[in-house]
C-alpha cells in the first residue's frame, strides 16, 4: 500500500490536477488536497465546506442557557437567604449569569465540534509532506491499487509545474 501525490506551487495547477484525477475516475472522497492556507476562490477548496458547526454552536448556547438558568434558580431556592429585599430567585441579576453561561456553552461547543470534525488532535496521516507548510499544495490519493497508482503517476505528471512523489 502506498500513496501517490504531487506538489504544486500554483493553485491553478492544483485545480487542474484535481480535475485530472476526477477524469481518471477517482472517487471524490479519495482525492486528498492539502495546503498551507485556505484557497477559498478555487473550486478544489470548496469540498467539505458545508457544516453543521453553526447549529452545534447554537445548541451549545442553548445548553448553556438552560444550565445557567438551572444553576442560578435552583441554588437560590436550595438555601433561601433574603438579601437587599430582592426576591429569593432574583431574575434580573440571574440573567447576567445565564448570558455568560450561554456564551460559554456556544464557545465550548464550537471548539469541541471544530476539533472533532477536523480530526484534531490526530496523528499525521501517511500521506503528508513537510513541503506543504512551505507553500506547496499537495494533491494525491492515499492507498491506490498498483494499477491505479501507475495511471495516477502519469496523470499528475501531465500537469505542469508539479513534482510527483510516491510514498512506499
Amino acid at each position, binding site marked *: 500500500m502506498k500513496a501517490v501525490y504531487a506538489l504544486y506551487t500554483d493553485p491553478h495547477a492544483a485545480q487542474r490536477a484535481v480535475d485530472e484525477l476526477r477524469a481518471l475516475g477517482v472517487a471524490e472522497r479519495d482525492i486528498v488536497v492539502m495546503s498551507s492556507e485556505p484557497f477559498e476562490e478555487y473550486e478544489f477548496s470548496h469540498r467539505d465546506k458545508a457544516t453543521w458547526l453553526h447549529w452545534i454552536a447554537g445548541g451549545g448556547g442553548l445548553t448553556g442557557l438552560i444550565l445557567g438558568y438551572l444553576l442560578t434558580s435552583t441554588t437560590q431556592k436550595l*438555601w433561601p437567604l*433574603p*438579601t*437587599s*429585599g430582592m426576591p429569593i430567585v432574583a431574575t434580573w441579576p440571574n440573567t447576567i449569569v445565564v448570558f455568560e453561561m450561554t456564551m460559554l456553552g456556544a464557545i465550548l461547543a464550537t471548539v469541541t465540534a471544530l476539533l472533532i470534525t477536523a480530526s484534531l488532535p490526530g496523528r499525521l496521516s501517511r500521506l503528508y509532506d513537510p513541503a506543504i507548510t512551505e507553500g506547496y499544495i499537495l494533491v494525491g490519493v492515499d492507498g491506490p491499487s498498483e494499477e491505479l497508482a501507475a495511471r495516477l503517476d502519469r496523470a499528475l505528471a501531465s500537469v505542469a509545474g508539479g513534482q510527483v512523489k510516491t510514498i512506499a
Partner: protein
Amino acid sequence: MAHRWGMVVDLDRCTGCEACVTACHAENNIPTVGAEEAARGRAMHWIRVERYWEGEFPEARVKFRPVLCQQCDNAPCEAVCPTYASHQTDEGLNAQVYNRCIGTRYCANACMYNVRFFNFFHPQWEKPLQLQLNPDVSLREAGVMEKCTFCVQRIKAAKSGAKAEKRELVDGALQPACAQACPAGALVFGDLNDPESRVARLAESPRGSKLLEEHGAEPKITYLQRQGWHEPDAQ
C-alpha cells in the same frame, strides 16, 4: 408574630459621652487598633458618635449623633456579598457571618452609613487584656468584615432563656450593650412588632426621622430630633 428588632436614638438625650462606644467594644470583642492604625483611619467602632462643627469660636456649635448599623430592611450591603456572608434574618437583622466572609469589602463600599469595619490585621489583645474578652462573641481574624449585630448574642440568650422559662420576653429587659450603658437613656431597643414596646411607640414620635431615608435602604433605627434651645431675644 416574629420579632422585629429596632432601635430609637433620642438625640435630645444624647450627650456624646461615648459610653456606648466603650460598652460595645467590651461586649463584642472589638479590637483597639492602636494609635498608628487609628490615624490611618482604621479604627473599628461599631457604634460611633459623629461630630459636625458649625461656626467659629465663640459661636461654635457641635452637632453629634451616634451612628451604628441601621439594620436596613433593604440593605445595600447584602446583595453585593458574593458568599452570602451578609444577609437578612427573619427577625429583620442584617446578619454578618464571619466564616463566610472572604474580605472583598464590597459590602462596606455599598453601605452608605459607613458602619462596616474590616480587620486589616489580625486582632490582638495584649496580656492580660485577653481575660476580659466576652466568651459569647466569636473573635474575628484578619480579612473579615464585621459590624454591629444589635448584640445578637444577647438576643439569642434572652430568647432561649425566655423559652426555657416558658414566658414571653419582657420589653426593656433585653438590651444591647450600648443601650444598657447609655447613662442618659438615649438608646432604646426593642421589638418593633410589639405595639406596646417602648421602641415601637417612640418610633412613631413626630420628632422621628431616619438617617439618609431618601436612599431607600429602609433603616430600622429612628432618630428623634433634638429639641432646640431658643436664643433669648437680645436686650
